[in-house]
């Protein structure tokens, strides 16, 4: 239970002279669902891409399931990743795409197929198995990415805005799957803009703004941080990221305009 699934120390990510993530540190324990919240351009996706071993950090120390990111292949085999922007091989069908992903992950036919059958039925994707991904709706593409991330029963799920485009039913199933994954001892790093979901799903929340973690803890701990007994996560978020001030003026200006 106490074992760390993710350990990030002084992470820095930069694009040229622009520093997107500035000395960020946090950790995620096993069975924990860690929500990474922040306004647009705060550095959430950059942090998540480093965790998924897609982006090389400028500096800092990152360990995934006790392994350094330099052990790239071993780290990646423990991760299930859903990118923010689902860009898959559009000319392949979901069946062909899953076949490719399973081949790279060296999954056995008899173990992967029962799991795939269950996931495809749960997300109602079965009927589209032989349709090119290019012809699928955004939601169905998202389902393909989610199923591909879950196929190999990873220890760590890294999800970048995974609920975008999902219908209510699939969204509910996905949230249940995430909760189940954590109950089984797996961990989740989750980025979202939807505060209600983060509030319900995440056991711990990190608020990132301008590349820095400006608040971290459970929702109750964050309430104490902003000295508010009842505020929702959205209120807390706006206070912590100092976006609350002047918000009412902007809304009034828009209404009168």
């Amino acid at each position, binding site marked *: 239970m106490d074992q760390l699934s993710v350990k990030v120390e002084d992470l820095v990510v930069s*694009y*040229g*002279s*622009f520093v997107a993530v500035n000395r960020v540190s946090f950790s995620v324990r096993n069975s924990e669902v860690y929500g990474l919240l922040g306004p647009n351009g705060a550095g959430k*996706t*950059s942090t998540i*891409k480093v965790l*998924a*071993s*897609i*982006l*090389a950090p400028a500096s800092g120390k990152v360990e995934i399931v006790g392994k350094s990111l330099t052990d*790239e*292949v*071993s*780290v*990646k*085999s423990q*991760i299930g*990743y859903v*990118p*923010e*922007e*689902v*860009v*898959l*091989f*559009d*000319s*392949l*069908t979901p*069946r*062909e795409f899953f*076949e*490719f*992903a*399973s*081949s*790279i*992950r*060296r*999954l*056995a*036919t008899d173990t*992967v*197929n029962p799991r*795939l*059958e269950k996931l*495809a039925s749960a997300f109602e994707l*079965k*009927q*589209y*198995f*032989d*349709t*090119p991904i*290019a*012809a699928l709706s955004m939601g169905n593409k998202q389902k393909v*990415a989610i199923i*591909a991330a879950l196929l190999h029963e990873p220890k760590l799920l890294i999800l970048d805005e995974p609920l975008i485009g999902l219908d209510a039913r699939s969204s509910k199933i996905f949230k249940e799957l995430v909760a189940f994954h954590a109950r089984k001892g797996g961990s989740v790093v989750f980025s979202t803009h939807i505060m209600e979901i983060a509030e319900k799903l995440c056991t711990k929340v990190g608020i990132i703004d301008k590349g820095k973690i400006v608040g971290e803890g459970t929702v109750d701990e964050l309430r104490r941080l902003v000295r508010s007994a009842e505020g929702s996560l959205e209120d807390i978020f706006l206070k912590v990221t100092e976006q609350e001030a002047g918000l009412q003026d902007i809304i009034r200006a828009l209404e009168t305009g």
Partner: protein
Amino acid sequence: MKFSKLWRLSSVVYKEVSFQSIFSLRAGSLLKQRGKTDIERLVRSARLNTLISKSLTAVFVGVLGLFVFVPSAVNTPLVLSKEMAFVGGVSAFFAGLLFLIAFMGLQVTTSFVSSKVVDVLGSLPLSRNEISKIIFLCLVRIFDLPLISAPVVFLIAYSFVGGSILGALVSVVCILVTEVFALALTIGLAEFFYSRVARGGRSKGQIVARFVFMLVWILPTFAAYFVMSFSREIVQSFAYFVLSVSSLPQVLALIYPFAYGFLLSGLTFPSAVDGSLLNFSIVASIGYMAIAICCLRWVVKTVGRIGTGRMLAGRFETAKDTFIRPRSPWVGIVQKDLRVASRAPSYASLFLLPFVQSAILAVSFSFGGMDLTKTLGILVGVSMIMLLLPPTLLSIEGISSAYVKSLPMKKRSLISAKALLSVGIYLFSLIVLLGVSSFLRQDLSLLAMFGVAHSLSVSAAVMLELLLLANKFWREGFAVGNLYARLSTYISVLIVGLIVVLAPIIAAFIAFIAAPYSVLPVFAALACLEFAIMATLTYRAS
């Protein structure tokens, strides 16, 4: 909306299609992690690439005019009259132009479908008709240089052979008709491909249909190549046909592109051409012009539909099960690459290019017996085309790089898979080469022995290219844009590959001078050594 405004709007779409086709879509959503300056550099590079591509086609049109039409029309075969040779030359030029533009168009239509430009235009206050016109004008912008160069080149070439003013004016109209036919052929093939072929489906029939269409897709390339390489032979064959069947000219005068050949011949040599043949060709030419007008309307309407990307969206295959068969990683990569290539015309044509090259080389070198010089010359030709394949194969990973990079893929697996596929294509090209040579009654022993031995050298070159590119672009996800943006890297990798494939050939020539009996052992030993070194380096790649 005024034409000038539509033309201006088409410029924005054109820039976007150029950028998306080369970078955005193939960078697999990784563009965002690049700096502003880098993106600006990519945008400039995309425009430059589009310009280079257009200019190259325009150069080919120039070659077609000056080196195919003029010699065919001037160096009259002995058996043929000057005006009939002129008919052959004009017909060869028009056929070459048709296939050249169609070949370029087939590469471009992929970006139209994938960029889904109409989705963006659709939200603006524009009618469907206006959107179609904008997309069509964008298509014209993509082809502008070849479309303009064709009449210019032909008029220059026509003036060399002493053409008339009326003939020049009519030739411009004939070229416009040909250009419309080329666009219609492109769009027709693209529509058929995206509505019937590029969908999923596991049945053997669908797999065969995809393979057959890949061959159809390569036909314009083959035809353009063929016309340019064998124009003289084509004109001579035309002469023999005309002489052997007396009523053939009357029939040909009605058939495109010969109808234009007879028409322009009649206008250039009025006293020498049979009046009835001229009348036939005038009637046929007017008919083709009417068909071209209908084709133009159809192209404007259809190109808008292709741009919506809805051609694919309308095709759903209801699956009965979810069963998959995972393979070993490298087989999975090869399988995926073949599947992507079978549905992406631009990749498919590159996959098939070595086969076309082999067939053309076998025909080109078929005059006289097969000796060592010819054998090695053919192998240089086939292996040079092969060197283009590894960068293309790596660029496939760029399509979905954001996802692929999250997979536990080993560099070694990636390089092995792509190398295996490239070498497989080389060996199939060798089979095509041997098949065509055998058909032409050539001695196959030298080709077979040196070809098989050279496959080791080609494998080494391919592995080296892949290793260099993988080391450079592993972290960036192999977006093809990355390669084009670093043109110097791309070219230097090709040069290194070329050195590897040429080394045994040069050694063989040296051996031939020093000790003729040791040519094959020297050639094979060097190829083996290259292969052994590169296989070791690939195995060690982490």
